[in-house]
């Protein structure tokens, strides 16, 4: 299969495993290694049969249209918001993602962020390192156990967050496209109602046209000065300027963010706030999980080119 051209726009993070495994099997065209990117795409447009994308780099309509022999887009992520799925459906291009293998890691980060924000773990770590502990004890922080956790999107990741929060005796409430009566969690028909009735609000749904800016000023105000927002979805789930002003003005109690509107740019006004924890889109960023995701990407590509059923198709 090493005659098959597979196109990658950006390197997949720190782990070289995916690139190594792709290089073993395919001829990988690495966009980031060439100076003239537009020319590179033009020169190779007719030979590219597959794209490997990830959370930050997919394939829009323009790119898809410029690759006449594109057959499959295999994304190194579970989110496919950066891929024009409608276009792919129209042109019969297959799309795969990496569900399930990253569910645990992302749910772990959601709870880790909630604990870190509410108990000020990062802030007090710096308090110790800078020698301030010698001058006095750290202040009181907010108990996490028993607080109501509201989850937007009760899919795989949402359910995994709920399972972990339940171990801390947290009552669970949720908003979802449809109510799930088989689960014993409290359903709210609107996000504002959910935000008004929980202490920690976790965004765990896919990014679509409907969920863009699902966290807006109204929701933030409903969550309130004691509420904590945890975003492990996509940056565009949140109206970021509204979030920043709410935090600066004390209208929101705190936030733990793994994703942002314009990664890797993070609003600098947040850097000085102690009621925040800021992660660099690391939700699935463990060696074990990234390897498992890479295996799925490779597995899907191999299945496609061997005319076998895809492992985790989206389209």
């Amino acid at each position, binding site marked *: 299969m090493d005659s098959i051209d597979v196109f990658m726009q950006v390197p997949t*993070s*720190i782990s070289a495993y995916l690139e190594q495994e792709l290089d073993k099997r395919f001829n990988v065209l690495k966009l980031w290694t060439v100076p003239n990117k537009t020319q590179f795409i033009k020169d190779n447009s007719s030979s590219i049969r597959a794209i490997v994308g990830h959370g930050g780099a997919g394939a829009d309509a323009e790119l898809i249209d410029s690759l006449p022999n594109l057959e499959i887009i295999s994304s190194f992520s579970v989110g496919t918001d950066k891929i024009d799925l409608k276009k792919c459906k129209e042109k019969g291009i297959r799309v795969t993602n990496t569900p399930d293998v990253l569910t*645990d*890691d992302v749910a*772990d980060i959601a*709870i*880790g*962020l909630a*604990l*870190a924000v509410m*108990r000020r*773990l*990062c802030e*007090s*770590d*710096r*308090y*110790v*390192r800078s020698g301030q*502990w*010698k001058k*006095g*004890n*750290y*202040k*009181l*922080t*907010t*108990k*996490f*156990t*028993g607080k109501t956790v509201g989850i937007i999107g009760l899919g795989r990741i949402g359910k995994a967050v709920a*399972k*972990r929060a*339940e*171990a*801390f*005796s947290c009552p669970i409430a949720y908003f979802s496209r449809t109510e799930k009566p088989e689960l014993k969690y409290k359903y709210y028909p609107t996000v504002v109602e959910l935000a008004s009735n929980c202490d920690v609000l976790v965004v765990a749904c896919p990014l679509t046209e409907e969920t863009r800016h699902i966290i807006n000023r109204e929701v933030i105000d409903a969550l309130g000065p*004691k509420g904590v927002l945890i975003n492990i979805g996509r940056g565009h789930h949140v109206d970021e300027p509204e979030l920043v002003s709410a935090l600066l*003005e*004390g209208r929101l*109690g705190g936030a733990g963010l793994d994703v942002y509107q314009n*990664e*890797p*740019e*993070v609003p600098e006004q947040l*850097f000085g706030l102690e*009621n925040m*924890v*800021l*992660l*660099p*889109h*690391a939700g699935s*960023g*463990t*060696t*074990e*999980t*990234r390897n498992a995701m890479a295996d799925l990407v490779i597995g899907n590509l191999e299945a496609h080119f061997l005319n076998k059923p895809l492992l985790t198709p989206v389209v």
Partner: protein
Amino acid sequence: MELIERILMEWKSLFYPHFRPHHKNLEEPERKKKKEKRKKTRLCSSNNLGTKSKTNLGSHSESLMAQQLQNLPDVLIIKPPPAFISFESDFTQKFKILRAWKSPLPLDQFLTKHAQSVQALLCRAVTPVNADLLQLLPALKLVVTVSTGANHVDKAECRRRGIAVANAGNAYSEDVADIAVGLFIDVNRRISAADWYVRRGLWSSKGDYPLSSKIGGKRVGIVGLGSIGYEVAKRLEAFGCKISYNSRSERPSLSYPFYSNVCELAANNDALIICCALTDQTRHMINKEVLSALGKDGVIVNIGRGAIIDEKELVKCLVNGEIRGAGLDVFENEPHIPKDLVAMDNVVLSPHKSVYTLESFKRGSEVMIANLEAFFSNKPLITPAYG
């Protein structure tokens, strides 16, 4: 910071949870309103006659109040526990507090002059209750410590003198377990280190943060499966961790595998979480042998007492990469920490604050008051400290 300033800061952040210096101006009107309300409430609760203002008290009411105060049993406090400061009025309604820290006299003189008939001592975790102190308190029959750990109380000496000892029982177990789990997630997933990376602008200039270590599937050994250890185990199970433990005695009602010694526990786990008390048996129990058994992929979290771990050995292992990382809320010589730890990004450091929430302070105060009340009514203590 002066003690008074520190107390004021804690009081402020306690009653105004959103008190942050840069929001002072925004919250000013609200703060003033709250301050006036607190003042009124305090005045109301300080007299039992239900009158709304102190200035309305006649001399008859004042002497009645003084008499009632006189009838309250004495409780000595040498240095006030933060939980006491937060909920002082709950104590003063039921007990007459002898405030040794407020006296200009040196402690031994104060005790000789004022505490010869005192039967109960309420103490902080940092107040050593030893023979030197006890011989100044000939009438003492009860020591109530605000902490769960009672290692600062010489229990043998107390036994000799017929002094009962009570601790906080499981008042803090949930908050302490939350910190243990928070530190465990942080060390493995590099939350504090990555947060610092982002705040220094390195994500945009240097690129993605290195990959961390998956929590699901990790084998976690709990050292000390008491109330706190149990809460930790329950939480970590939900993350897909496999729990086993070492404890003074096996708990057959729990299905976790038991290891009879801590070295074997370390050898069969990816992480150790220290949840036991500090005793003569557990001092430096986590030593070079145990750390070697834990191995270079192992992580250790300590929310017990610093001296349970041989700190010098731990630092050496971390420096040499003989264990992968550590999450520490306690240290051998607080508030001092080994300087080698300051530059490490595979450790998470916490200033012994696992019980520092309003809920824990409230619950801790309730337990202390319940023990004192039981003692003064000749009933069994609620949470006697054993061992």
